[in-house]
């Protein structure tokens, strides 16, 4: 973690190697006196040049590449890509395929939210909740494995439809699993809203007000926790969401505790959706034909990933290979929001805000080099935190 010291730069290097899990990032703030005037983030440790690789693979191979952008929400990436290609070739998948896609989308949302719940608790040192939530997450992983044969990267989608079918026996096991999970979620809701030490770490931490979130284009649960009713499943319903409408869940608080509550309420919403889809699963075949060469065209497909809005732009030039595929993942939105949300705030608030917005970013400890005009001191994260506490005493 070499420290790049240049005037007016206040560098928070987050080590690429992190004990728990998260992707490595690298923050840089510009400080004038107490107020932060500029903040930026630098990725790079996880950049695999995917958009360039899509240009030398044909449409079918790209499906397997784009599924592996993110291990936790691989199905949503595949769905967005497949919807885009079907729009390019103006083909629509049969209703049964759309419903199965929605079913797996919701199961993946349950899986992702429970994972985040465990990891966020682990970040705060609450390992028992981490163990419990990841033990219960195994149930939804079994359901997904029963459906698609793989715990992660289930590759259920095919251009023009789905590869798997849901028979009555599988539907029964899914319903049983969902009932068990619903019971457990009530327990988590109780823990998250009543446990004193947990609330001590999450209440009014990293609060983002409604207009701040609106002005900075926040997406996903982070936006909904600040009161913005923005959810692509409701605004621009795709796959089978038009026939299975969802209720957008928003919270007022805008702090980390509100984000926990929003995500757990979304779990309830997903359980309801899964049951509804299983009851009213349309009958019909599973795929339609999609030509190998997609005619020259442009398409945009937006889907709601567990962490926010996922944006795909596809351009075809009539050959077997796409001309351009642009993927804008929700985390870039979250980071962009945070970087600008930090401007104008006091240096002393930074530890809370960084830990608050998305626990997956409060990675390993941050060494902070503060460049006041005259000299640059090297503070540790702890000094920054003590500075914050002293500042407010």
């Amino acid at each position: 973690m070499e420290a790049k010291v240049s005037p007016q730069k206040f560098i928070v290097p987050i080590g690429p190697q992190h004990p728990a899990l998260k992707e490595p990032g690298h923050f840089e703030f510009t400080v004038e006196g107490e107020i932060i005037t500029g903040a930026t983030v630098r990725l790079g440790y996880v950049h695999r040049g995917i958009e360039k690789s899509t240009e030398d693979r044909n449409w079918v191979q790209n499906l397997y590449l784009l599924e592996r952008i993110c291990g936790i929400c691989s199905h949503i990436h595949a769905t967005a890509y497949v919807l885009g290609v079907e729009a390019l070739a103006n083909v629509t998948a049969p209703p049964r395929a759309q419903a199965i896609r929605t079913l797996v989308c919701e199961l993946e949302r349950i899986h992702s939210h429970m994972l985040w719940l465990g990891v966020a608790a682990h970040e705060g040192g609450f390992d028992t909740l981490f163990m419990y939530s990841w033990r219960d997450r195994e149930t939804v992983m079994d359901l997904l494995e029963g459906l698609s044969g793989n715990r992660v990267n289930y590759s259920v989608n095919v251009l023009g439809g789905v590869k798997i079918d849901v028979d009555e026996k599988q539907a029964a096991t899914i319903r049983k699993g969902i009932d068990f999970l619903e019971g457990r979620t009530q327990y988590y809701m109780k823990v998250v809203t009543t446990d004193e030490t947990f609330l001590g770490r999450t209440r009014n931490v990293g609060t983002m007000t409604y207009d701040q979130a609106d002005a900075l284009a926040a997406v996903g649960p982070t936006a909904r926790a600040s009161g913005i009713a923005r959810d692509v499943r409701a605004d621009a319903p795709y796959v089978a969401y038009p026939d299975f409408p969802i209720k957008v869940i928003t919270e007022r608080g805008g702090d980390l505790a509100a984000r926990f509550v929003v995500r757990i309420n979304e779990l309830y919403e997903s359980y309801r959706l899964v049951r509804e889809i299983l009851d009213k699963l349309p009958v019909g075949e599973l795929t339609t034909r999609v030509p190998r060469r997609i005619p020259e065209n442009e398409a945009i497909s937006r889907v709601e990933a567990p962490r926010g809005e996922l944006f795909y732009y596809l351009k075809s030039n009539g050959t077997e290979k796409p001309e351009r595929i642009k993927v804008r993942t929700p985390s870039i939105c979250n980071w962009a929001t945070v970087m600008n949300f930090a401007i104008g705030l006091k240096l002393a608030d930074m530890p809370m805000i960084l830990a608050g917005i998305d626990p997956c970013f409060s990675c390993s400890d941050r060494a902070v080099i503060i460049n006041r005009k005259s000299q640059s001191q090297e503070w540790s994260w702890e000094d920054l935190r003590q500075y914050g506490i002293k500042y407010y005493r």
Partner: protein
Amino acid sequence: MNISISPLIALLFFPGGIFLLGSGLVYEYIDRKLVAQFQNRVGPRWFQPLADIIKLLAKEEITLAGVNPQLFVALPVVALAAALTAALYVPMFGFQAMFSFRGDLVVTLYLLSMMTLCSGLAGANSVDRFSIIGATRTLTQLFSYEAPFLLALLGPAIVAGTWQISDINTYAMSHTWLILTQPIGFIVAVIGLMGKLELPPFDAPEAETEIVSGALTEYSGRGLALFRIGKDVELVIGLTLVVAFYLGGLGNPLVFLLKTLVLRLVTAGLQSLFARLRIDQTVGMWWRIGALVALVQLLAVIIGLFIGKII
């Protein structure tokens, strides 16, 4: 029960060195097993701590550049020595303490906090950011739980009228359990013990997700092994102290085993119940609640004695 064995053997083998290290490992195993069971995991096998220690002893020792090498090597040894000497004054395994003199309670507590001091110094000694931060956290936490823990142990000392651990032990054995007469003192003592051993909710100094592993980040091989054994020994001594004072003294090994295991169960339960407190929260909690409550308990005891004398 007092058995007369020549001091050398007592020091090296029986209640002293090897046996104590062994019991430290056993208690660490019990702790990891209980916490795992609470998180309904299977937990490690019985010889796990022993395997960990031997493996660490057999590993390559890396001394850092930019670190004072003598200090780097000496600190773990001093830490373990402090912990072992503290064991002499405590009635280990229900036998009489080997050496005891008036005021050995203070010496024992001093030696135990020497142990934490050494790991704090070890962290401050190295260049690596994480260990410096770990060191500051260890030392801030040391100052925060030391006072209430001492006050909590003073209660029984005043009631027993002496500062000698073995006398307090005999007093506790003969009278009603002090946990009944001084419940608050007992609670503060148990929580103080968890603070001293840096068990979770108070494990900010070595928070794995925040500062890699705190003050001991740079240690590997022998240094780390010595620190870990030191912490295990400190664990056993802490348990015996609190049991000797509050749970009606230690008559014989069986009673000792029973009571310490019960206390071990309580601490393991508390460990898996709470999230890790931020360092400023722990310090705040100790000074605002811990110290005050311990003081109130102390006053209650003194007033009680005073009234007792008048009637």
